């Protein structure tokens, strides 16, 4: 009996938070994810980069099962990703997600956006939820916009609210699916700064992005994807100054030297 329980604990090593093992996915004939193996440690910031269509967004979305996978396993905090239903909803509450297009609830105020999950999923009472929502909104610098509707905010402000909404659930890990790709250039930094602060605070983050500056400064590890495969993983310094694969060299040469 003891041996069994020990073996179980070994399977979910304390440091490993998100583990993907030989994950495969097809969109029709397109093999978007091919044998993906990826382990994310607690507190680690992993930036996923790569050319368009390389499967990085899909990878990000499989982790909270917004995309289903055809084969392989994904475990979060030692638990395999559940099928549809209550179990899955519970898991998603623990995995924060920030989308490219913000996706704030358009019929609710900024404050209500950040309160909804706390009240309906976490069953927090209304007063505490509001307190926490205001605190988080202050933290991402949009506290004064609490009573406005999302459409009245700039893109950068909306995205920061979206981050606050995800944080309100006390997630174990945050997924960012190209959080700055839909933003005007001048608004990108305000979002990146919030993310950098989050990284410094020790949040586990998986960030799909084209922001190489963020990857350099905030990432513990860069994962480079191309054509549905993880081609290379390395520390950011090493990856940007000395990429090993030709595919990564080619990619970097196209984006870094202007």
């Amino acid at each position, binding site marked *: 009996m003891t041996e069994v329980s020990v073996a179980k604990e070994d399977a979910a090593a304390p440091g490993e938070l998100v583990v993907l093992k030989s994950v495969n996915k097809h969109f029709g004939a397109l093999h978007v994810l091919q044998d993906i193996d990826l382990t994310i440690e607690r507190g680690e910031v992993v930036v996923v980069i790569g050319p368009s269509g390389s499967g990085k967004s899909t990878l990000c979305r499989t982790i909270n099962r917004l995309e289903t996978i055809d084969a392989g396993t994904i475990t979060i905090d030692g638990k395999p990703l559940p099928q549809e239903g209550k179990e899955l909803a519970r898991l998603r509450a623990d995995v924060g997600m920030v989308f490219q297009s913000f996706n704030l609830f*358009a019929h609710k105020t900024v404050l209500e956006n950040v309160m*909804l*999950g706390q009240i309906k999923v976490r069953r927090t009472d209304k007063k505490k939820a509001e307190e926490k929502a205001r605190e988080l909104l202050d933290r991402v610098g949009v506290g004064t916009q609490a009573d406005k509707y999302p459409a009245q905010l700039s893109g950068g402000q909306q995205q920061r609210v*979206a981050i606050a909404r995800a944080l309100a659930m006390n997630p174990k890990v945050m997924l960012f699916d190209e959080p700055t790709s839909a933003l005007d250039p001048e608004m990108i930094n305000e979002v990146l700064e919030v993310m950098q602060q989050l990284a410094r605070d020790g949040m586990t983050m998986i960030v799909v992005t084209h922001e190489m500056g963020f990857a350099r400064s905030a990432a513990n590890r860069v994962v480079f994807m191309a054509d549905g495969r993880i081609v290379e993983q390395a520390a950011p310094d090493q990856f940007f100054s000395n990429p090993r694969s030709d595919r990564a060299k080619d990619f970097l040469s196209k984006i870094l030297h202007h």
Partner: protein
Amino acid sequence: MFDFLEGYDVLGAFWMTIKLTVFSAVGSLVWGTLLAAMRVSPVPLMRGFGTAYVNIVRNIPLTVIIVFTSLGLADIFGMTMGASDNFELQGFRLAVLGLAAYTAAFVCEAIRSGINTVPLGQAEAARAIGLGFTQTLGLVVLPQAFRAVIGPLANVLIALTKNTTVAAAISVPEAALLMKGMIENEAQTLAIGAVFAFGFVVLTLPTGLLLGWLGKRLAVKR
């Protein structure tokens, strides 16, 4: 000039029309919303039921449905709606049932088209914070869908108001039944027709204007 109206309870008949409309509207809104939820649900059986219901019910003439509630449900199956000894009340309740069942099919389709106006990302964001299917639909998708279809729902409500005249077929004493009686007894048939036509316009025109205004006011800004 209007002495042909003497001895007839025109207002009472229109009051019956209003009651039929209001009860059927509430019933069809609830049932139609449930049908719409079924049609977008992940459960194939529910989707199948919703689709079958809508396609069968909206293609049957309302007269057939209303007559069936009386001759079929009440007379053959003994569904007297808790009013077996009160013929008028029974007819009223059966008519509301038939009207609601019929109108729900149209309400369902209006709401479903509203659901299609809500960007997919809204539902994804709702699921991503841990809301289940019912919560995602009830808290995020439907509130936005409703606001998008207030105009189309006003159309359905106006059609329903006029459709209540079919209840005359099972002797519910509403406006159309009274009109039929008056035309048989009085000479001024054109004037009688005009009075009832006017009555219906008075009921439906404000409905359309009010809901049109409300639709604009409540529209979700994106």
